[in-house]
């Protein structure tokens, strides 16, 4: 499988420095005339971004991945070695035991590459928690040791969420690497074979669409219809729902925007499409994000920009629902990605 790119870190890109990325969002000439995100919230009457009761603990099990997608906001790839230890996972379990959070969303990298992944899922399952795994599909066919993942997911009631930017090889491979579409279809068939994607099995596989360039995603319902029709007709594959996610102007997608001369236009597009209803429903209000090292963030994007929660409870070993409840959510201009048009979250469009 040919990689779409390599990590910014490996290439020694200045964008691998999160301070440089923050400066791009704050003081770059392309964004000079744009309002700040907090300013926009105030002006639109949404006000300060305060958390609601958290429902989801999103845990990043590491930056290691078998793929290296061009738009990756994690800067993940085969060369990244940062992964969560069992000790930190145990602290996540302790935090969950002491909280009312009902859903755990496991992400990466490819979370399955963490050697403690299965142990962790078993622990979560034994607690009766709803488990989501952000599976890149190709990992299932990448190595024989992963071929039984569909059975493992089924056994532990895992809700699988997988990226597939298009129902066609050309576009998918352009973003995710050569051969990714072929392998993804193979993996989807394996998931379908154990009941995933079929009605009334209770086994859910949702797909995630993100635009293949400096564009906002189109309407989710209409894209879902096209995906379902094409994947069934051409590949005999079924899935449950399509989530449309906007590409955030950070990390490798930011690199694409700058290198292709689209940065200024894209940022203006996001700001012009600001939707107050989407802003009120942003996922950071009901999610706590945990980094591979146990640090706490308002969302996975803040995590990748090294913007920790503004709270004394800033590490999973100091997890405190009451401390976190009084925090103000940390924002920067990348947040316009979640509030543009119909909005965007890890669960798709918001408004």
């Amino acid at each position: 499988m040919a990689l779409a790119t390599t990590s910014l870190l490996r290439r020694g890109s200045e964008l691998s420095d999160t301070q440089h990325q923050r400066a791009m969002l704050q003081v770059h000439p392309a964004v000079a005339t744009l309002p700040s995100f907090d300013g926009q919230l105030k002006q639109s009457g949404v006000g300060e971004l305060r958390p609601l009761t958290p429902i989801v603990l999103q845990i990043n099990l590491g930056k290691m991945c078998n793929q290296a997608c061009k738009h990756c906001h994690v800067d993940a790839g085969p060369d990244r070695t940062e992964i969560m230890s069992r000790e930190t996972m145990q602290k996540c379990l302790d935090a969950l035991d002491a909280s009312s959070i009902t859903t755990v969303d496991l992400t990466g990298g490819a979370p399955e590459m963490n050697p403690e992944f299965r142990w962790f899922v078993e622990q979560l399952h034994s607690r009766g928690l709803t488990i989501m795994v952000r599976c890149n599909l190709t990992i299932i066919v990448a190595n024989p040791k992963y071929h039984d993942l569909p059975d493992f997911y089924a056994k532990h009631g895992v809700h699988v969420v997988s990226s597939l930017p298009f129902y066609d090889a050309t576009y998918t491979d352009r973003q995710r690497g050569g051969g990714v579409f072929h392998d993804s279809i193979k993996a989807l068939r394996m998931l379908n074979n154990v009941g995933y994607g079929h009605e009334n099995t209770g086994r859910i596989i949702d797909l995630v669409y993100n635009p293949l360039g400096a564009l906002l995603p189109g309407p989710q319902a209409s894209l879902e219809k096209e995906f379902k029709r094409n994947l069934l007709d051409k590949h005999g594959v079924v899935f449950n729902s399509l989530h449309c996610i906007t590409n955030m102007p950070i990390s490798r997608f930011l690199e694409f925007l700058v290198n292709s001369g689209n940065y200024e236009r894209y940022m203006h597009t996001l700001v012009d499409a600001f939707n107050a209803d989407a802003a009120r429903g942003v996922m950071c209000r009901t999610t706590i994000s945990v980094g591979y090292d146990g640090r706490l963030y308002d969302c996975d994007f803040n995590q990748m920009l090294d913007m920790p929660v503004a709270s004394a409870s800033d590490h999973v070993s100091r997890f405190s629902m009451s401390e976190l409840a009084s925090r103000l959510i940390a924002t920067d201009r990348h947040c316009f990605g979640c509030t543009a048009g119909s909005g965007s979250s890890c669960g798709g469009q918001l408004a």
Partner: protein
Amino acid sequence: MSTYYDPADLSKFGNISAFQPELAGKFFEWYGAVFAEGALTQREKSLIALAVAHAVQCPYCIDAYTTDSLQKGATEQMMMEAVHVAAAIRGGASLVHGVQMMNKVNEVSM
């Protein structure tokens, strides 16, 4: 005015309401309704708009509906086929008048 067309003018389309708000309001409301999902999907409508944009050779419309078609999940192949449809109708419209020419030739010729 240094050029007739400026890409930045596309996003100012709504400003036409400054000189005549009532008619502009009616136009934009109708425009929105036209492009809503109906018997035709939003993607089909976007591709029709892209084809028409090429027929009327409006650079603003080409810019807008290239972006819109991509956002609606159209492929490059679909979009180029839409442009060919526009070109075929334009070419055909010229050629079918060849019959008129032939009619006239037949009328005046011995």
